[in-house]
């Protein structure tokens, strides 16, 4: 009888310990390193900005942020991966806008972009068309003129079919009545290298990826596709200045798998906001990366995505790529 009592007591003790351990584990998020999936290739604008923010996010979160690149199909490969992850807040994705608003209108995707938890957007991208520095075209007009006279001759590199880079060029082609065609690369660094190597004629790329090659004099800008001029190439005009009724917009943003709890989202949102407001980050963004940090919180980011879902949807219909 006595022995039985001891066993029961022992079991109770064990249960208590296990129970306490269970309670003890519920510490404040995050308690372990967070994995960030970068949807575009290493060396691209998204990658560089994400890696610039990471140390400061780490400081805020108190846990390492482990970044990995999973490039492919303009970021949709990585976003599809994020969609499948456990929604515990320990995996998030850095993605571009097309993965959320464009590709789903072009073809069936293995994920539903509306279901993601939108964390925040640190900045919009800015776009420039570059050609090789020894190319025969010096201005946008010369380039368009040549393209008109030589249909189907011009090739341009983009970081993926269905990227805003691709759609913007197709929109221009439709407006000007020219025929040129896109060659998708793994990311902007690869498409810039293809321009330098002479495998394609031009590329439409976001700024940071092109900074080094431009400063080294390997490529020259023809036109800015974003709304405003860019400090990297202050003398290059924008499409709007040239009389087009169009500018190319996309932004970088962080998303969490569908169903991630709010405490994780808001913590990450604050970490990104904190990192965006660090003076060193602002300084570096302006002077070496040539991007404009413009923090948008989760709600604003979602709003932005909804707005551009329609904008790009219209353009998709006009250039005939809507599904």
């Amino acid at each position, binding site marked *: 009888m006595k022995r039985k009592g001891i066993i029961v007591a022992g079991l109770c003790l*064990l249960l208590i*310990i296990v129970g*306490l*351990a269970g309670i003890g584990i519920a510490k404040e998020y995050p308690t372990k390193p967070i994995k960030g999936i970068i949807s575009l290739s290493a060396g691209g604008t998204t990658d560089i900005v994400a890696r610039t923010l990471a140390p400061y996010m780490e400081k805020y979160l108190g846990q390492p942020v482990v970044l990995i690149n999973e490039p492919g199909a303009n970021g949709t490969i990585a976003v599809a991966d994020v969609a499948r992850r456990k929604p515990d807040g320990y995996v998030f994705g850095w993605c571009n806008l097309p993965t959320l608003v464009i590709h789903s209108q072009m073809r069936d995707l293995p994920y539903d972009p509306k279901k993601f938890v939108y964390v925040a957007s640190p900045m919009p991208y800015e776009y420039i068309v570059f050609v090789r520095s020894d190319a025969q075209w010096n201005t946008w007009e010369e380039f368009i003129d040549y393209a008109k006279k030589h249909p189907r001759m011009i090739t341009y590199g983009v970081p993926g079919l269905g990227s805003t880079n691709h759609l913007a060029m197709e929109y221009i082609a439709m407006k000007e009545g020219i025929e040129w065609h896109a060659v998708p690369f793994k990311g902007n660094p690869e498409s810039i290298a293809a321009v330098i190597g002479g495998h394609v004629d031009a590329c439409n790329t976001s700024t940071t990826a092109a900074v080094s090659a431009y400063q080294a004099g390997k490529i020259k800008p023809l036109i800015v596709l974003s709304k405003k001029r860019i400090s990297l190439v202050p003398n290059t005009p924008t499409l709007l200045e040239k009389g087009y009724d169009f500018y190319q917009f996309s932004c970088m943003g962080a998303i969490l798998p569908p169903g991630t709890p709010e405490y994780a989202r808001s913590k990450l949102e604050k970490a990104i906001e904190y990192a965006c407001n660090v003076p060193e980050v602002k300084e570096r963004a302006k002077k070496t990366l040539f991007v404009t940090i413009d923090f948008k919180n989760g709600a604003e980011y979602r709003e932005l995505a909804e707005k551009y879902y329609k904008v790009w949807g219209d353009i998709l219909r006009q250039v005939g790529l809507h599904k």
Partner: protein
Amino acid sequence: MKIGREGKIALGLIAFCLINYFYLIPTQVVQQGSSPVYPLIVNTFILVSSIGYFYQSTLRRKRVSEGEEFEEKKVSSTEKGEKSIKPVLRVIAQTAFIIIWVTVLEYVGFLLSSMVFLAASIILYGSRNYFKIITASILFPLVIYLLFKVVLKTALPEGILENLLGSVFFGQ
């Protein structure tokens, strides 16, 4: 014409390619909206090399039967001579152990499941020194677990044992 072991494998490969052509590519590639061009190229490549493989293996067998080459006999004698049923069973048992281990890993936790797995497969591999079996199968998972927990700060699948350990040593 008799078809040897190599020939049978080749026929299996050819059958796979045909299945790939007529079933897998239409359902798993085209229906999913993917371009079938590259899969078709790869499949054709496998098919051509399998046919070459089949041709070569039957060709070689013919020579063997004519007594021109003794290479294959040598191979088969060493293989078949020692092939008792037991060693293959070991492989199957080890595979089964891994399957069981992986299946319960999530529910039981890394420590307990790995300890049992290690002890079982060490015995399977032939050790009968129980001191070694017990120390190795308890210490090794513990070291790995602590390496992940303390150094890398990431967790392997957790269960009862991990929680207990956590409450005793980390005061969580």
